[in-house]
C-alpha cells in the first residue's frame, strides 16, 4: 500500500498511457469491423473467407508481432502506432465475427418492412440495421475492450509505457507491490471501461430495457 501511495503519479501516468494505446485500438477495430462484417454477410463466399481470415489474425503470437510491425510500418520500435496497429488487428479478429453476427441477427421481417416503408439501402443500414444490431455489437465490443486492455501490457516488454511496465519493472527489481499494482490496475481499468460500455449501451439503446 505504501508503494502505491508513494507512486500515485507514476500509476496515473501509466494508466493514461495505457488508455491512449487501448482506446484508439478498440475504436479502430470496431469501426473497421463494421464494413467487414457487412461484406461478410453480403455474399456467400465472403463470410467463410473473411471470418476465417479474421480468426487467423488471433493466431499470430503477440510478441513477435510487436517486434516485426515496426520494420513493416517504418516507425520506431517504441512508437505507439505499432502497438495500436497490432492491438487493432487482434481486436478485428474478434470484432469482425461479432459484427457479422450482429448484422445477421436483425430479423428479416423488419428489414422487409423498412424496405417497404421506403428506406434506401444506405438509410436502412444506418437507421434500422445498425441500431438493431446494437446489442450483439455491444457484446462483441465488450470482449474486445477487455482483451485489448489486457493485451496492451505485452508491449511493455519492448519498453512501451503502460501499466504493464509496472509488473515488468517490479518483477525485475523484486518489488512485489509494484507487480500486484500493475496487475490490479490493469484489471480495474478493464472493468471500469466495461462498465462504461454497458452504461453507454443502456443510454443509446433504451428499447432493449423496455423489451424485458
Amino acid at each position: 500500500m505504501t508503494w502505491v501511495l508513494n507512486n500515485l503519479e507514476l500509476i496515473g501516468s501509466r494508466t493514461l498511457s495505457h488508455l491512449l494505446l487501448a482506446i484508439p485500438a478498440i475504436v479502430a477495430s470496431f469501426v473497421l469491423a463494421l464494413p467487414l462484417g457487412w461484406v461478410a454477410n453480403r455474399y456467400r463466399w465472403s463470410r467463410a473467407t473473411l471470418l476465417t481470415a479474421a480468426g487467423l489474425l488471433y493466431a499470430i503470437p503477440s510478441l513477435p508481432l510487436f517486434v516485426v510491425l515496426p520494420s513493416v510500418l517504418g516507425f520506431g520500435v517504441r512508437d505507439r502506432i505499432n502497438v495500436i496497429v497490432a492491438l487493432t488487428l487482434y481486436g478485428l479478429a474478434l470484432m469482425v465475427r461479432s459484427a457479422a453476427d450482429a448484422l445477421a441477427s436483425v430479423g428479416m421481417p423488419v428489414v422487409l418492412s423498412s424496405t417497404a416503408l421506403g428506406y434506401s439501402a444506405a438509410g436502412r443500414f444506418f437507421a434500422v440495421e445498425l441500431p438493431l444490431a446494437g446489442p450483439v455489437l455491444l457484446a462483441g465490443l465488450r470482449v474486445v475492450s477487455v482483451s485489448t486492455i489486457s493485451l496492451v501490457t505485452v508491449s511493455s516488454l519492448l519498453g512501451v509505457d503502460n501499466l504493464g511496465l509496472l509488473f515488468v519493472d517490479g518483477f525485475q527489481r523484486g518489488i512485489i507491490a509494484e507487480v500486484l499494482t500493475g496487475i490490479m490496475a490493469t484489471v480495474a481499468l478493464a472493468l471500469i471501461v466495461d462498465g462504461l460500455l454497458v452504461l453507454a449501451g443502456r443510454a443509446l439503446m433504451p428499447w432493449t430495457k423496455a423489451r424485458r
Partner: protein
Amino acid sequence: MIRFQDVCKSYPDGTEAVRDFTLEAPTGKTTVLVGSSGCGKTTLLRMVNRMVDPTSGAVWIDDENVADVPPVPLRRRIGYVMQNAGLLPHRKVIDNIATVPLLNGVPKAQAHARAAELMELVGLEARQANRYPDQLSGGQQQRVGVARGLAADPNILLMDEPFGAVDPLVRADLQAELLRIQRELEKTIVFVTHDIAEALALGDQIVILAKGARIAQAGTPQQVVAEPADDFVADFLGLGRGTLDLHLRETPTGTLVVDGHGRPAGRLVEPG
C-alpha cells in the same frame, strides 16, 4: 386504380410464382387476394411497390407503369401493412407511425402531430405514444402498423395478412375498425389473406387464387358465394363441407342460423 397486366414472375431455379396474371383493383375499393400459402398472392402484392419486379408484364397505378418509377419514392407514397406489424422495435410508437412523413422531409413536430391524429383514428390511446412496440399487445401493434401505413396519406394501401397473427376476437375487432376507417378514407386497398371469412368480411372485390396466382374466380363476395365458378372455389369457400351451407332452425328463444353440421353459426335478427 391498380392494374396488373399479363404479369409473370419466375425465379432462376425454374419455379413460377405468378403466371399471366391480369386484374384491375378499382380506386377507393378493397380488393382481397385470397388463396392458400404459396399461391403467389404476396408476390403479387409486392409487385405494386416494387419489392418484387415482374419477369414480364406490367403493373400500372392509374396511367403510370410502376417500372418507370424509382422504387424508394414509389414505396413512400404507398402504405404497407404486414403480418406482425413489422414495426421498428427501436422506435417509439409515435416515431414508428411518423416514419414515412419523416423520410419525406416533413418537420418532426408536424409529423408527430399527424401521428397523434392517426393513433386516435385507429383506436390507440395517446399515452401509448412513447412506448416501444414490444410493450404493446399484438392487436395494439397491428393498429400501430395500420396507422403507420396511413401516415403519408397514401392513395394506396397494401396489406399482407395484417391480422394473421392475432387471436380471433382481436382480429374481428381490427377488421371492423378497418371497415370503419375505409368508409371514411376510401383508399384503394389490396389485401392479402388465406382466410376466406376475412376476405368475405372486408372485400368489395374477392379474387380467389390457385397455384401460380391463377385466378379461380373474381367477383363480389355475393357472387363468389352464390355462384362459385368451379369445385376448387366451392371447396375453398367451404361450400359442400358445411361451413357455409347455412339453414335456419327455430328455437324457443329465437331463430338460429345453423351450418351443415348442425352447429350454430349465428342468429337471425332484423336488419338495421
